[in-house]
């Protein structure tokens, strides 16, 4: 390297580190936005608390005027990936365009999660949590879903519920209590230890919904058993459900989540009958 180049490089490095001096212009700085998505803070009367909800909409040209779209309600904010992924998957014809409604919390409210996701109280290490599942269910079905249907081109008959871990338990309980609430359910790595009663519900539940149960192959045995048991009960002869069970080889409790989105979303929401795009 020439001495002159070295000197220039050194000068540039110095300039860059000196009190955040910019070697060129920063025109603006802001928070990074999520393309095609609106963010809401809703106050729920049923729960008496706020929820942070992000609604991702497919690219404009994919939605014809007057067309209604399926809706996927993803718990735990879709871990921040379900929304953007669904948008790209629809744009690349990997899935039917759908609205993705990711339900989560302001960071300061995150501790409420077990209360909202568990229908029954759960005691661990002397601490009891849960019991707010019915109220959270009411928020989703009686407050949020109608809002989405009133403000977006949403097809009320094609809504799906997607929960992982404790969210998977919640989804299993909704399925058992009122299967017709959604047209499809994704129950991912259900953390049944927090509510073994959800299995009883699965034992007797009936309906025509599509159900997708998943687990990572390296999860603890209790998790593998939970997924297998819930699948077996939902897929029993006479239940009426269309059940897919998927074990992700080499994956743990959370690591397969993006891959799950890539597989499950196209599986649970097949395009409506009629000519394709």
């Amino acid at each position, binding site marked *: 390297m020439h001495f002159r180049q070295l000197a220039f490089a050194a000068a*540039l*490095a110095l*300039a*860059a*580190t000196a009190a*955040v*001096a*910019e*070697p*060129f*212009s*920063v*025109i*603006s*700085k*802001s*928070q*990074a*936005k*999520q*393309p*095609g*998505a*609106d*963010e*809401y*803070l*809703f*106050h729920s*009367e049923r729960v008496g608390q706020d929820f942070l909800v*992000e609604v*991702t909409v497919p690219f404009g040209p994919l939605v014809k005027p007057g067309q209604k779209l399926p809706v996927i309600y993803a718990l735990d904010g879709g*871990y*921040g*990936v379900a929304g*953007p*992924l669904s*948008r*790209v*998957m629809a744009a*690349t*014809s*990997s899935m039917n365009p759908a609205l993705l409604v990711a339900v989560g919390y302001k*960071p300061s409210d995150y501790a409420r999660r077990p209360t909202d996701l568990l229908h029954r109280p759960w005691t661990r*290490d*002397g*601490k009891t949590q849960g019991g707010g599942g019915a109220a959270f269910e009411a*928020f989703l079905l*009686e*407050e*949020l879903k*109608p*809002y989405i249907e009133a403000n977006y081109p949403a097809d009320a008959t094609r809504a799906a519920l997607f929960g992982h871990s404790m969210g998977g338990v919640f989804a299993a309980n909704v399925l058992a209590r009122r299967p017709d609430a959604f047209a499809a359910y994704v129950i991912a790595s259900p953390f049944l230890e927090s509510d073994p009663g959800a299995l009883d519900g699965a034992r007797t539940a009936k309906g025509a919904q599509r159900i997708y149960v998943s687990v990572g192959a390296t999860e603890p045995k209790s998790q593998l058993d939970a997924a297998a048991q819930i699948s077996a009960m939902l897929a029993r002869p006479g239940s009426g459900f269309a059940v897919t069970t998927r074990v992700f080889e080499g994956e*743990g409790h*959370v*690591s397969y*989540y*993006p*891959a799950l989105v*890539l597989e499950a979303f196209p599986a649970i929401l097949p395009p409506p009958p009629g000519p394709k795009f």
Partner: protein
Amino acid sequence: MRRVWISAAALFLALAGGVPGLASPVKVVSQGPAVQAGGEAFVLHSEHTGRDYLVEVLVPTLSASLPGQRFPAIIALDGGYGITGPMGRMLVDMAVMDPAYMISVGYPPGAPNGRNRDLVHAPERQQEGLTAGGGGAAFQAFLTDELGPFLEARYPVDAKRSILFGHSLGGLFAANVLASQPNAFGGYIIASPSLHWDDGAPMRLAKAAPSGDGRRVLIAVGGEEPQRMLEAADKVATALSGPGSTFKVQKRVFAGENHLSYYPAMVLADFPQVLPRMAPVPDQRGAIGLDPSTYGRYLGAYRLADGRTVTVSAQGTKLMGQLSGLPAVELTPQSPTRFFVRGVDAVVTFDDVGASPAPALVLKLNGAEARASRAD
């Protein structure tokens, strides 16, 4: 007639008033465009290209850096199609890959999309109804001479170890950066490279092959793409794989996928390959039971060289640790003085001197190590 009218109105009011079981209007506390948590967006003006760029930075949520420690970034062109940032960050947070900053480079909304010029080094020409070319060298200079130092000044990022990731025209661009300046980046992801805009690229790649110095190059293509694209991926792989090449090349064909559809799966597959975990996840078996009454000497705040603190507290029978700015995590004992954080490459070892309170701890994080002395 009037009685019927009033009855209908009364019925409407009764329904709207929220009969139990029917929809109740939910209150919108606030509403706006969705923002990415822990993300910053900059509009930067480049002197080299004369254009503005939208650069989005996603900071790893759960990863911590020790004083002086720097992380690589993954620089995704075409704004990462809006997904490489969130997906990459999730992979980092799940410890599937080493901590890295996710940088997406695109164009500000409303500005003309300059990719046809910026991503092609070859002179401008027309082909199949498109005009492209002429701006690649200047855009390369923007990335290496302007963006790199900008990132290093603001974040604990090591630009030279960063990965350049391009798809389509972006794939061609990444290939040309590799060919002209292999040490500009620490690794390259070249996806569906549009070689038809620059068929001299494979020859230049072959010339640069001996200068790889162990850098990883991941090449990807969709199995259903047109023949010329499958051949382009092959040519790039071949050019970099000859005898004398010092690049580590991997080519992946995504069966059944088209030019765009494999993109998310490629991010999942390639990011952990291009930045694999540097240090193996430490042995986390052998958790022992410790009498919580022995934790007393550990409680308190310890200060790192850069002023951040590690706060150790007790929560019931658990020992908890919290690094400034991150959530508190449980410290699981492996010995009376050594604790690990489940699922994370983090170990806290308290000074094994009888002194109470413990005067210091050593924090090992993602392969690096730092000492923190008691602050209170």
